[in-house]
């Protein structure tokens, strides 16, 4: 059975913060490298995303990084110089198409961006459980959020029910794994058919249960267990401070880079280094929170 809401192997501190902060962080972490394709920024992003995903997912995450993210990055890095021929430093002709140094550099940067986005999303999947999403969007799209919650309740139930149907039909001599190809397909179809009827018909009582508890009355609210406490306020303040500084420095353009027609970047100005420092600070902040908590628990345990 597939589990819903991939909560990572480790209990995360950052996941314990308010969903708004979780969402804010990932929104920032994913979009900044997409918007500002600067090599240094990208390296910071990739490093922090990799570190955090490995922290959250352990060996599995490392394997995912090697087995999936790395090939995708290589592909992306190769894609660019093969299809784009701008840039003035030609190093090779591939089937009469010039391969330029600039497009290779650009491809590498783009690959780094893709890698960090994918890795950030693995962290997002571990931290932003369905609950949090439903909480954040429950007010905005209440009906759809409720559908999501209902579907998430039904899916494991359906997965179990399919097993039951298969067993039940086997019990009266309709095994799904025997017979010719067509028989098996037909039997599989019958299982689906039973499943669909069962799901739809039993839903009627669910609808009644919603009606009985007043669904449809005007002015429905969305409740959640999440509270915005002082710890959240502190993190929000640090996020806001660092992110606005970072964005301000980035937008004012001190950290600019030119890829074509010749790759050039300006010397890093003091203002630009502030941007980089801030970006690194934000990107590594969740990981730092986790590590601090680990240290705290180690010290608590050693005192016992």
């Amino acid at each position, binding site marked *: 059975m*597939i589990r*819903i809401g991939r909560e990572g192997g480790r209990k995360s501190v950052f996941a314990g913060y308010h969903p708004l902060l979780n969402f804010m962080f990932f929104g920032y972490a994913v979009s900044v490298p997409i918007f500002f394709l600067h090599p240094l920024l990208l390296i910071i992003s990739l490093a922090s995303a990799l570190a955090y995903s490995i922290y959250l997912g352990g060996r599995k995450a490392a394997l995912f990084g090697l087995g999936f993210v790395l090939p995708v990055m290589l592909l992306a890095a190769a894609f*660019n110089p093969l299809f784009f021929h701008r840039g003035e430093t030609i190093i090779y002709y591939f089937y009469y198409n010039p391969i330029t140094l600039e497009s290779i550099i650009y491809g590498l940067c783009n690959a780094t961006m*893709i890698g960090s*986005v*994918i890795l950030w999303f693995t962290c997002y999947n571990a931290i932003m459980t369905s609950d949090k999403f439903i909480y954040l969007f429950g007010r905005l799209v209440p009906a759809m959020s409720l559908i999501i919650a209902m579907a998430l309740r039904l899916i494991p139930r359906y997965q179990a029910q399919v097993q039951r149907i298969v067993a039940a039909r086997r019990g009266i001599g309709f095994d799904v794994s025997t017979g010719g190809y067509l028989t098996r397909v037909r039997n599989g179809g019958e299982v689906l058919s039973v499943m669909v009827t069962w799901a739809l*018909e039993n839903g009627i009582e669910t*609808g009644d249960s919603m009606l009985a508890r007043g669904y449809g009355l005007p002015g429905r609210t969305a409740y959640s267990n999440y509270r915005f406490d002082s710890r959240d306020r502190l993190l929000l303040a640090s996020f806001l401070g660092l992110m606005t500084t970072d964005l301000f420095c980035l937008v004012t353009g001190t950290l600019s880079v030119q890829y074509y027609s010749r790759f050039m970047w300006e010397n890093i100005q003091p203002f630009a280094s502030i941007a980089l420092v801030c970006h690194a600070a934000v990107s590594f902040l969740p990981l730092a929170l986790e590590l601090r908590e680990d240290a705290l628990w180690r010290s608590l345990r050693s005192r016992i």
Partner: protein
Amino acid sequence: MPGPEKRRLSNRTKVAAVLVILCIPLVIAINILFFEDRSYYITSFVIIALSMVPFALVFEGRKPQARELVVIAVLVALTVAGRTAFFMVPQFKPVVAMVIIAGASLGAESGFVVGALSAFVSNFIFGQGPWTPWQMFAFGIIGFIAGLLFYQLAASIGAPSRDGSMRPENASYLKWYDINRLGSNVRARRRVERLRILVLCVFSGTATFVLYGFLLDTAAVLMFTSGEFSWTGLVATYVSGIPMNAVHASATVCFLLLLAKPMIEKLERVKKKYGLLGAQA
């Protein structure tokens, strides 16, 4: 009360259809053709995400009743469970087939919601990523179009009553060619059956191949080349994507052949039992 209410809803649906079917591709085209900005990926990502807003607003604004939510949630859950059941076979998924069936029997808006939410919810299992909005949009729009084509056509073919309002009991594509009207003419029946299946299969195959396949391939290209746009790159990706998209399209056709008739019959029955008939157009 139900009369004007229904008309307003269908107007909303029309607005949504216009917005999506005309405006969004237009914006994409303008961006691709006229702006030499390097943020194609971001622009397209934003457009895709925003394009779902009118659907969401229409759906939310309608304040769907409890039973309608249940039917949609059940269909979403079935679709996602179907996707997980076939997780080991790449691209061989019943998702599009289910979404088309949902659109055809519940209407365009619900078709979109089932499609988009199926993609979203299943990514809670398979992992959310930059592809999520694209998948949501692709599945959603397929459900939407299926609803427009089959639900509307069904309603217009089903004889309208004298006061001009649609007769809800005619509002299903199954009643398109009401088999009972053909009486005992067996050959006519068979012809109709065959035609019906052919139409559905052609639509579902094309929708999967073109809409889903090309949309997601475009997303991949835009992501891979975030700074620039290259026709050759796009074409290369489309070409390399053909086998996968072909598998997906044929899977959709297969599942539809297997599921369409029984599923729509079951949905019709439940719609009747729930009193959902004519809830929307």
